[in-house]
């Protein structure tokens, strides 16, 4: 139990001292996870919207698959990306293994299904309401998708946050493809794993507290943005 008390003390100390190593780790964590969320949204939102309004054979199976992919085990994704990016792998020539780019790729693979599946859910509900109006207006599928994504934008912020939460908290994939190299690919979660294995439990816990605070701040920032913006835009 002493560890907890010590950890909080240490966490405060770390943050207040603005330790350059810590700041570097925090910055990389944010860069990797936010980039992964952005890419996952660029792919996942149109995919989810298309699946929400599409009527084609195999759609139910695709939805089940997508929902199942939300539970992709990070280590498995990490391993697959490792195999793809390793020197012997098909993408080996790009020399991406053990770089932040590899970590972004792994996290993108991990959270794109989450973004797409949740987006599908949100857009499908809204489409049920708009469907007759849209058909009355003779809109094309593309126009429907854009209109729905725009009108669902505040709910989709939460979808993005779900993806970010998964990405920033994830350790299995980034440690495999990133390698937890100091000053290069070390992020919050891999640092915590390392300190834990070295027996520096207080430091590990302190980093954990910083990570939690970080996640909380991002969520708070996005939600307050959502509230202010939605107050002006719709009920």
């Amino acid at each position, binding site marked *: 139990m002493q560890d907890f008390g010590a950890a909080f003390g240490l966490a405060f100390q770390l943050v207040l001292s603005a330790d350059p190593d810590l700041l570097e780790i925090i910055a990389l964590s944010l860069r990797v996870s936010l980039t992964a969320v952005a890419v996952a949204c660029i792919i996942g939102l149109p995919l989810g919207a298309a699946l929400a309004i599409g009527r084609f054979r195999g759609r139910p199976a695709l939805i089940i698959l997508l929902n199942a992919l939300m539970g992709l085990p990070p280590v498995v994704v990490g391993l697959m990306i490792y195999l793809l990016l390793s020197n012997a792998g098909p993408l080996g020539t790009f020399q991406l293994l053990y770089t932040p780019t590899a970590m972004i790729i792994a996290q993108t693979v991990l959270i794109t299904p989450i973004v797409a599946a949740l987006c599908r859910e949100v857009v499908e509900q809204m489409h049920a309401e708009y469907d007759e109006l849209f058909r*009355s207006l003779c809109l094309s599928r593309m126009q429907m998708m854009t209109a729905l994504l725009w009108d669902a934008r505040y709910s989709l912020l939460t979808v993005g946050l779900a993806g970010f939460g998964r990405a920033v908290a994830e350790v299995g994939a980034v440690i495999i493809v990133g390698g937890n190299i100091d000053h290069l690919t070390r992020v919050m979660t891999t640092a915590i794993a390392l300190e834990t294995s070295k027996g520096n439990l207080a430091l590990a816990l302190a980093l954990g507290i910083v990570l939690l605070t970080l996640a909380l701040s991002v969520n708070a920032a996005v939600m307050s943005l959502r509230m202010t913006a939605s107050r002006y835009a719709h009920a």
Partner: protein
Amino acid sequence: MPMPEQAATTLQTSSPSTPPALGEVHGLLYRAGGSNLIESIELVLDAKSLTVVMGPNGAGKSLLLRLMHGLLEPTAGEIRWGGRRLDDRVRARQAMVFQRPVLLRRSVAANLRFVLARQGKPSKAVIESLLAEVGLEHLIDQPARRLSGGEQQRLALARALALQPEVLFMDEPTASLDPAATASIEAIVRRAHERGVKIVFVTHDLGQARRLADDVVFLNKGRLVEHTSAERFFDQPESRQARQYLAGQLVLA
């Protein structure tokens, strides 16, 4: 485009000089869940009149409207507007207002801009004049979903009129509105009709039907029972079902 002659014989409105037919429905059948919800409907609507569709609950009024607008595919039968088969190009010249107004989660102006965009970039003046027509110009920048029920329906109506439709379908647009809001909707609809828009208006409200209708289409259990001029329908309905309905009785098959 030539009109089939035999269609105009049986169910024509009783106006002295027969105006040209705009909408024609032949042998319309709509099946769902193993029963015929709409059956053997023959109907000719002229281009001028304000047509009110009436009938008890479950008579198929809303279904008929959706079929005539092409939101539902008929199981069998044919629907033509101005001689053309109902397709996207025909539907693009029609508009529909629903019982519950479906407004986008955007501002009042953006709701109009959304439909005006397909005729090019809409000017502020066009949006303002549309809103003035329905008395909402002071709410132009409000979020559409924050308006009252009556204001929302007026906005939905303005959006439908923004399409400059030939035909405007209205599916019980005032069913959940108070008398003042109802009156303002009716006034807008009447003005649109005077400008030459064909109106097909579904309502349960006898008073509203009396105020608005030129001709009445009376449905019961998915079948067309009668289609006559409003005058005739309210004074001397031809069918027993219509007499029961107007007397506020249970309509028996």
